[in-house]
């Protein structure tokens, strides 16, 4: 789509964001509520000389995406919970082999087939710990169709800059909501491309990192003869199944995110400065939470909103800072039975109570019900979570 202002849904905005970011490879398997991303890509990709594939399942979809990334393309797949579960195996492979790519998960109600057409936020911990082994991950959680566009671009940039699969964790409400979306002109978009090796194939070590802990990436067909394996590997990329290599590699993979988290971390604050109670909400729920802040403030309760845009890395320092500074309580609103609430609780380090406003899926919290909870907390009527 040409740079302009549009009235489109989140999934379309996501597809356009990917194209704007330079994505030219897309492989996926149809699943509600992510299918519109496939449909948009299927239509748009021949026009941009991209490669579109509908694969046999999500296992193959992410496999193809990783293969395409090693063949030099920016690549993406899109799915929802059941498909995301299938992708966990190769999500780990992409993390281990440091393959830049983007995985969109439009969350729906689970567990299992759950609520295919309805919203939930039950996959947030799966994005963090769903694949086996210890990993460092980056997950964006867009709160509007505009952010579906912006954060898809950002997800590609982070994937390319830090060489890892980045998850865009959307939800059925944000994905299907139609709103104003501005597609900016190309020159206004900051587009990042992966670092390429500066030395010769003879000198090049595929897994020897620069100071930022990210190794430059040579792709297939560029003459570097790179061996890529999911086995524990040394700087040459060769399997080396021993404790020393494992410690060296996995530590770097985790530190690559931890030590760069100031650069990656993203969150938004709304009326937090003088707030006594802070709502933590992400994705679609953050919209109700924002409304609840205004409603509560109209009643004289000093409430603010902290909206993590990256769920991982998590704004842990900021939450600690606010808790230590004297915030009276945190209220975490999420469409699950409590996942991010424990992260918030951990970050407050006992300085103040953390409450949970759960929801099992099917709809988002209403501002009114959040305000009810805020009254209760404000009046000291609620037991801590």
């Amino acid at each position: 789509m040409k740079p302009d202002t549009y009235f489109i849904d989140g999934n379309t905005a996501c597809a356009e964001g990917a194209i704007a970011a330079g994505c030219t490879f897309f492989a996926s398997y149809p699943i509600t509520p992510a299918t519109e991303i496939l449909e948009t890509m299927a239509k748009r990709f021949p026009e941009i000389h991209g490669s579109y594939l509908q694969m046999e399942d999500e296992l193959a979809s992410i496999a193809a995406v990783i293969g395409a990334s090693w063949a030099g393309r920016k690549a993406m797949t899109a799915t929802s919970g059941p498909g995301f579960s299938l992708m966990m195996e190769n999500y780990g492979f992409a993390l281990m082999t440091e393959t830049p790519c983007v995985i969109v998960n439009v969350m729906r109600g689970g567990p299992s087939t759950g609520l295919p057409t309805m919203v939930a936020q039950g996959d947030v911990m799966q994005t963090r710990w769903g694949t086996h082994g210890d990993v460092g991950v980056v997950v964006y959680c867009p709160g509007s169709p505009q952010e579906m566009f912006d954060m898809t671009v950002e997800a590609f940039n982070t994937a390319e800059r830090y060489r890892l699969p980045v998850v865009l964790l959307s939800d059925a409400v944000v994905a299907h909501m139609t709103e104003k979306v501005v597609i900016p002109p190309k020159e206004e978009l900051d587009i990042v491309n992966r670092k390429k090796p500066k030395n010769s194939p003879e000198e090049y070590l595929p897994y020897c990192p620069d100071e930022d802990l990210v190794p430059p990436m040579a792709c297939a067909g560029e003459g570097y003869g790179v061996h890529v394996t999911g086995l524990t590997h040394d700087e040459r990329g060769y399997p080396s199944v021993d404790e020393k290599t494992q410690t060296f590699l996995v530590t770097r993979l985790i530190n690559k995110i931890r030590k760069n988290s100031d650069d990656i971390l993203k969150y938004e604050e709304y009326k937090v400065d003088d707030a006594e109670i802070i709502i933590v909400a992400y994705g679609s729920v953050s919209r109700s939470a924002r409304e609840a802040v205004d409603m509560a403030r109209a009643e004289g309760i000093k409430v603010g909103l902290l909206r993590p845009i990256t769920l991982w890395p998590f704004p842990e320092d900021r939450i600690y800072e606010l808790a230590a500074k004297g915030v009276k309580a945190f209220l975490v609103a999420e469409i699950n039975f409590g996942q991010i609430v424990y992260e918030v609780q951990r970050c407050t380090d006992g300085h103040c109570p953390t409450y949970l406003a759960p929801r099992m899926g099917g709809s988002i919290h209403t501002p009114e019900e959040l305000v009810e909870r805020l009254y209760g907390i404000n009046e000291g009527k609620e037991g801590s979570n």
Partner: protein
Amino acid sequence: MAEQMEGDVIGGKKIQEKYLRDEMMPHIFCNGCGLGNVLDYVLWAVEKEGFDMDKTVFLSGIGCSSRIPGYIDADALHTTHGRALGFATGVKMANPELNVIVFTGDGDCIGIGGNHFIHAARRNLNITVIAVNNYIYGMTGGQVAPTTPEGHFGTTAPYGNIESPFDMSKMAIAAGATYVARWPVYRPNQPINSIREGLRNNGFSFIEMMSPCTTAYGRRNKFREIKDLWDFYIDNTILKEEYEMTMKFGSEEEKEAAKDKIIIGELHKISKKPLEDRYRDLVKELME
């Protein structure tokens, strides 16, 4: 470059020096394993076809045969169990200029990767798959595989396998592969020719290599020595042409003797436009 290899023999040093990663040696394969033969045949085919190693990518899944790309001095993706063909689909569609060769085993290909296998064949991607069939899960120590013959033993079939085995080559043909051949490793020339044919074929080529695994399969099935397994292959295989002649003109006894044998040779060869060409044509058509 082919002249450089003149006078060399299969299993010879020159081809190894040219194509293998010295620093990866020694390899992990057991004595008597057929994977060395398979690797050698593929390298010979690549050499004879004059493939540019900078434009050739080797992929594999998990298992003994999937460790082969690690020894080849070229771009390689040693991926997850059963998924190599998914990765290969991405590589080939992302850059059709690359030659894509996939190493897989029987468990990797038709067990855990069965769905990817039939769909890659159906799409008729222009890639070559070398499926090494040792009729067992070798790397994990000899568990029964979807290819293990009925009555044969594995650590997870201690009383003998009661399931019917898969015929990978038949499956490849049924799913849409455009070139299919099957050879035991004890014949060097025919497999090399078939691999070359596969590399030349503009479509999905599938070469099944019957390969001995004395360590995990043989010793539980009265094939303790490498020769026992090779003899088993000799006694239980029949060339496609011979099989067809026997079934047409043979006596009842000859037919009876041939009917349960594994048919080897060049099994299938048709011409069909591969997926990446179809996609390219589609894009061209839409742009006009």
